């Protein structure tokens, strides 16, 4: 555990990092804009090319902040609920479930933004429940490995159904293959405004749940004897976790590894206290997602490399490194 002084330095560093990344995100891209224009953009009376570019990049930057925050908090919640340091919405197949429901909606009718959010949420929730149940089956109950295996199996099964729907309909295949890779470019101001209330409420609830989740880490029986309504907290945290992940997935497509890596790092640096983990995860998540997006835009040349791909390409090796170093699969 770090001393309070070191922790607040770390906090300031992260906030600074996030802000710098946000500004860079507004400045960099196909056209590099000066810092002055970034400031000017907030003054609605000034209109010129550079300022317009900054304004065009705003929704993307804000969405990156939001997405990084939601996904890492979602991951932290799921890791806490399942007492499993490698729980992540993409590993649990939640993303594929959300994708399946969205594509079913797409293939049967035109889906608007709100309906795709609802579809993603329902799909994600159902998948998560199924994966939980499957991994509790058999000797030993729900172990981290069985959860991972069940999630992988579920993901594969659902992915086949998605492929089947795509093969049937040329147009759908074309639309959907772009959706399947997480990208921040698809969200408009309207989209962001639609999910913003959901995300804010979820984040608040998550923060309020943090002390109960800390106690639940001691074990279900211990928590019950300390007065915690274990089932209620489980259900609420799961709903909030899936909501956060599904809102982002519905708009951006599946972005993996954020929920997995960020809370892991944060726990290594700040310890396991849920309040700190949630706070630092949300900030670090935003910073990392912003950087990945910037890298994707710069490296991609004329086309961007979508953030979902960058996260997988960078996140997977990091994940593998973590797995190699960790000897015991518990909260160390």
């Amino acid at each position, binding site marked *: 555990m770090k001393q309070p002084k070191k922790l607040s330095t770390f906090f300031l560093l992260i906030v600074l990092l996030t802000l710098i990344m946000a500004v860079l995100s507004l400045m960099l891209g196909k056209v590099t804009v000066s810092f002055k224009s970034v400031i000017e953009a907030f003054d609605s009376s000034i209109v010129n090319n550079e300022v317009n570019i900054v304004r065009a990049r705003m929704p993307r930057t804000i969405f990156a902040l939001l997405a990084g925050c939601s996904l890492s908090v979602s991951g932290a919640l799921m890791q806490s609920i399942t007492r499993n340091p490698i729980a992540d919405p993409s590993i649990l197949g939640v993303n594929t479930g959300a994708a399946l429901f969205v594509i079913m909606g797409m293939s049967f009718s035109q889906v608007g933004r709100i309906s795709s959010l609802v579809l993603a949420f329902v799909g994600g929730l159902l998948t998560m429940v199924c994966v939980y149940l499957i991994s509790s089956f058999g000797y030993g109950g729900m172990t981290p490995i069985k959860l991972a295996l069940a999630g992988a199996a579920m993901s594969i*099964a659902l992915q086949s159904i998605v492929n089947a729907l795509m093969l049937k309909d040329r147009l759908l295949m074309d639309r959907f293959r772009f959706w399947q890779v997480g990208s921040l470019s698809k969200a408009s101001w309207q989209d962001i405004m639609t999910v913003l209330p959901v995300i804010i409420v979820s984040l608040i609830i998550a923060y309020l749940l943090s002390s109960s989740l800390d106690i639940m880490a001691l074990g279900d029986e211990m928590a019950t004897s300390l007065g915690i309504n274990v089932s209620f907290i489980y259900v609420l945290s799961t709903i909030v976790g899936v909501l956060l992940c599904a809102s982002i997935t519905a708009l951006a497509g599946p972005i993996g590894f954020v929920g997995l890596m960020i809370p892991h790092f944060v726990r290594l640096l700040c310890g396991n206290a849920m309040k700190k983990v949630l706070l630092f995860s949300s900030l670090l998540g935003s910073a990392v997602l912003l950087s990945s997006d910037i890298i994707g835009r710069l490296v991609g040349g004329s086309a961007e490399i979508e953030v979902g791909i960058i996260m997988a390409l960078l*996140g997977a090796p990091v994940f593998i490194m973590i797995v190699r170093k960790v000897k015991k699969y518990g909260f160390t």
Partner: protein
Amino acid sequence: MDLHRRNYYKKKKKYLIVVMFLIMIIAALMYIGLSYGKTIYSFSHIYNVLFHGETEGAFVITTLRLPRVIIGLLAGICFGLAGNIFQKLLRNPLASPDMLGISTGASVAAVFAILILQLSGLIVSLIAIIFGMLISLLIVLLSYHHGYSNNRLILIGIGMRAMLSAMISWMLIRASEYNVGNALRWLSGSLNTVNMNDAFSLLIVTIIACVLIAIMNNGLSVMGLGEELPVSLGVNTKTLRISLVIVGLMLVAFATSITGPIASVSFLSGPIAGRILRNGKNNMAATACIGAILVLASDLIAQYGLSSRYPVGVVTGMLGAPYLLYLIFMMNKKGVQ
């Protein structure tokens, strides 16, 4: 004969009867595959084409349908056996050969070859096999950090597969929409573009693998007893494990290189055989039969049973999800153990 001996032979007889029955189903499916289609051929006609050089319908039967049916049989056997090996080795019904990334690795290479290198045919298969094996090797090497750990292997496999899937998605996005269909069809696992040469090479691989599995089967059963007991019973667990994994990977690599990854067959065959026989054994022969039945039946459904022609992997893939739900249902009935 004493009671134990009698029961032993009774069980063996039951096993043989079940396998015979499954083989009959396979024969029936193969016959349907040969005779049914836009033109329906009778049994005598097929017999004449195959053995007496009858020319009418020869193209359809020998070039279109026969390789399809043979490779469907062999691929089903290969995928089913490979899946069963991994499930019995890891003692987990949720395991699949792709944990070592062989299918995903082969898929990345194949999609790359199809979309970027604009290749097709045999060379795509070769590239797929080689790259698939390389990825598996990489995963195994990465998971060896101060000793071997099952868990670490599984997790690293998941991470690697995520990375490879991202690459596949990226390539699918970058491709022009004309080629995407091809790549997607390969990814679904298909019996569409197979020929007799493929069938021959796959037959050789399958026979070799079956012989090896038959030899190692007893050792594998003993290994189900835990980590130390097999060693004290004289089973060389380390060698056996490595050999079985290699056989499993070769089965998947070769079958995948010809048909693409046919989803779910490796995952489902072992458990289905187990449920039919309920004897807690490895059931290799039965699993091979179930695998073949799954592929052959799914191909028939995929060709004629749905609104348009689909690759076989689409149908098999769709069987995976209900099975998972069935697992949950069964678990609720029995109660969580």
